[in-house]
């Protein structure tokens, strides 16, 4: 019990991290992680509430619960252009988590709740590193709550929609190039906010074995009003940097997903699937800080991001080895939304190749213990954050073992 409480505590305090193109996280169900993060055409359990609300009426059982946590370890290396020293960014252990509950009051109607962490970013470059005037450390966490209702017509078409409430908190520190006897000035900004969006999807089972899904998760504008902004500057300049509040705007991008999967073989032992995910990253034009008390030195600042929309391609496969064991494999390619001239150490983004595997063990009927492992290779990338003339080469690697439980009855 104590262990469970500890786990729960870790889960509740979870910070998530950026991986993939930008600050979007893809760790939402061990079964899906095992299959290269595909899920738009799948309806094995309550995770379809998130992956495609149109899929939840196809869940076989009346009740379905799924929960789990990933342990995400990442490492980013940075080699500044033309300079000797190299920097290693040690990410903190991040634990993105999920919990889904779906219930079918009738054979064709499904209601449910999805709670997970689809966006986040957490990194710490240190206080004295070369890019400290851009970023020292940053932690951004978003947790979403999604009550969902879905309906299916015959066993062919399912549609569903969920209302998404996102709660986000962030904390960032950067240095300011105004020096006193104690070194650089600093700026800390921290705050939290919540806002609404939606998640809607449709799933079609055109013929035996086949499943097609289309889902759309809307953009959510995370605008924080009156976040705390604390400047530390030399005393002689402090009147220019009063204790301040700041309005911050960060959009969580919309996602359009298409998925297809096919089950075949004896007792549908095999399943293969694919997923195309179009991320509307271009909504992230700039990170805007609008300080409420304006002075000659403190004003509205926009940090240009100029992200571009991207298509993530994923494939996965599943094999039911026995009634007790299912194994999964998958992979994907997640291209970066960040242009070379806007490559910022705040979100050191690069093209990523993901490789995944997973298993489910069924100790008793209805219960499965799901485990998955994800390894991501970041493709070495050079770029400059041109507004700050900060240039160098980035490379990263992430790996994330995770464990979860699914219970259906």
């Amino acid at each position, binding site marked *: 019990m104590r262990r469970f409480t500890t786990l729960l505590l870790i889960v509740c305090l979870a910070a998530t991290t950026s991986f993939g193109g930008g600050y979007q996280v893809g760790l939402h169900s061990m079964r899906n992680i095992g299959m290269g993060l595909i899920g738009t055409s799948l309806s094995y359990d309550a995770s379809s509430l998130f992956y495609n609300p149109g899929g939840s009426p196809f869940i076989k059982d009346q009740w379905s619960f799924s929960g789990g946590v990933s342990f995400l*370890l990442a*490492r980013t*290396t*940075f*080699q*500044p252009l*033309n*300079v*000797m*020293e*190299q920097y290693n960014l040690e990410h903190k252990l991040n634990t993105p988590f999920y919990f889904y509950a779906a219930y079918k009051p009738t054979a064709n109607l499904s209601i449910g709740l999805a709670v997970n962490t689809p966006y986040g970013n957490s990194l710490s470059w240190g206080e004295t590193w*070369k*890019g*400290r*005037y*851009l970023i020292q450390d940053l932690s951004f966490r978003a947790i979403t709550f999604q009550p969902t209702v879905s309906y299916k017509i015959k066993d062919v078409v399912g549609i569903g929609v969920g209302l998404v409430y996102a709660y986000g908190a962030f904390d960032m520190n950067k240095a300011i*190039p*105004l*020096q*006193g*006897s104690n070194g650089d000035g600093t700026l800390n900004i921290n705050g939290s906010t919540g806002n609404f969006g939606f998640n809607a999807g449709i799933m079609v089972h055109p013929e035996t074995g086949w499943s097609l899904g289309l889902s759309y998760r809307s953009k959510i504008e995370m605008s924080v009003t009156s976040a705390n902004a604390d400047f530390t*500057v*030399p*005393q*002689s*300049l402090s009147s220019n940097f009063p204790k301040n509040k700041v309005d911050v705007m960060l959009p969580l991008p919309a996602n359009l997903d298409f998925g297809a999967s096919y089950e075949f073989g004896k007792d549908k032992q095999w399943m293969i699937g694919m997923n195309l995910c179009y991320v509307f990253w271009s909504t992230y034009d700039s990170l805007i800080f609008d300080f409420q008390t304006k002075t000659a030195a403190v004003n509205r600042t926009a940090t240009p991001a100029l992200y571009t929309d991207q298509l993530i391609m994923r494939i996965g496969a599943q094999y039911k*080895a026995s009634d007790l*064991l299912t*194994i999964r494999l998958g992979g994907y390619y997640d291209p970066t939304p960040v242009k070379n001239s806007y490559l910022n150490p705040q979100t050191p983004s690069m093209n990523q190749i993901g490789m995944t*595997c997973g*298993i489910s063990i069924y100790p008793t009927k209805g219960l499965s213990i799901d*485990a998955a*492992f994800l*390894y991501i*290779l*970041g493709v*070495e990338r050079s770029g400059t954050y041109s*507004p*700050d*003339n*900060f240039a160098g*080469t*980035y*490379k*990263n*690697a992430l*790996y994330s*073992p995770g464990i979860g439980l699914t219970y259906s009855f």
Partner: protein
Amino acid sequence: MKKILFIILSLAVFTSCERKIDEFKVEKGSANFSTYIAVGNSMMAGYADGALYRTGQMYSIPNIIAGQLKLAGSGNFVQPVVNNDFGVDFPGARPKLIMGYPVDCKGTVSLGPVPATGTLEPAAPVGYQVNNLAIPGAKSFHMLFPGYALFNPYYARFATNANNMVVQEIAPLNPTFFTLWLGDNDVLGYALSGGVGDTITSPALFQQAMGGVITALVANGAKGVLANIPDVTAIPFFTTIPYNGLVLTQSQADSINMAMALYQLPFHYSAGPNPFLVNEPNSPHPYFKVRQMQPGELVLLSVPQDSLKCKGMGIIDPGNPFQPYPIPSQYVLTINEITMIKSMTAAYNTILFNLAANFNLGFVDMSANLRLLQKGIVWDGIKMTSTFVTGGAFSLDGVHLNPRGCAVAANYFIDAINLKYGSTIPQVNITNYPGVIFP
């Protein structure tokens, strides 16, 4: 299954440890950096904040370059170290400037440069050979002037023989590589004197002197880079006080207009900024040889600020209201003087460019670099301009660079070295170098 998972896990951990980026590889290319020397003036000596002091020398451009050349096999770089952090004592010397709270003639306290409180170090010979031969105040032809140590206390600190020419210091050092940034003072001396207390070196003499210096430097086959001369009128010393810095209220303007009518001077004043008065020997007026300053003309940072603020300098002295009070000529650069400075600088730069080509040296276009700084440059999120104090690149004397500015300049030299000799000397991380320190 467990086995597979184990294999994948170990593979992942293994590959993750291998996620390294190639480290910066230092190559010396076709140059030999083993003995590096620097020749120049105050810009290369580490002079800053109006003094030559220990910390400034530590962050001198050649010392920063030398630190990087060490990675490519360069030996120790010896400077004529000042042991204290205030400056060298000789007639007229003052301690370095620091940011503080000066009180002006009106009793107003503001944030600005003030002299640090400290004792200057007696100007005594250091007693050892140095690699940094840069001498504050030195002009091109001073390098070939026997006994220059008698006239320049900074050279006297490290001259190996009082009767030496500076170029005679070079051969005993047996340099393999050098940086040369000299010649600013040939025109800057004139500019700093407001065009009245110094002369501009003639291009012919400049060419002869620079040619002589380079000949001495390359005598033993040394390679090196040469920097040209930026437009000295673009530095904060000349750009901080505006020509129309006389700010008046309506009633002040009214009384001045009345006085000007009495003087029979055709100048009109209004509320807000107005041009200062300066001397004009060619004025048609029988008594008052003055005129208003023109846009583009410059007031020097050395102008006595209290006289401007409280004594009516630039307009009318309230203690002597019967005549106008122009800013004395040594604090002003007129259009003619500025034109002269710029055309001479252009002539010097043509000479330097040709010398670099003739002697097959690397070339640093400091003139272009200062133009970039005027518009504003950004490195690693640090925005720098040529503005006094807030620009972040110049030291508090408004002429010399601060350590951060020196680091940027050192990187320009390093780029030129790499370009010319195919070496890969790393740049310095400029964020490691302090800018202006505020209280």
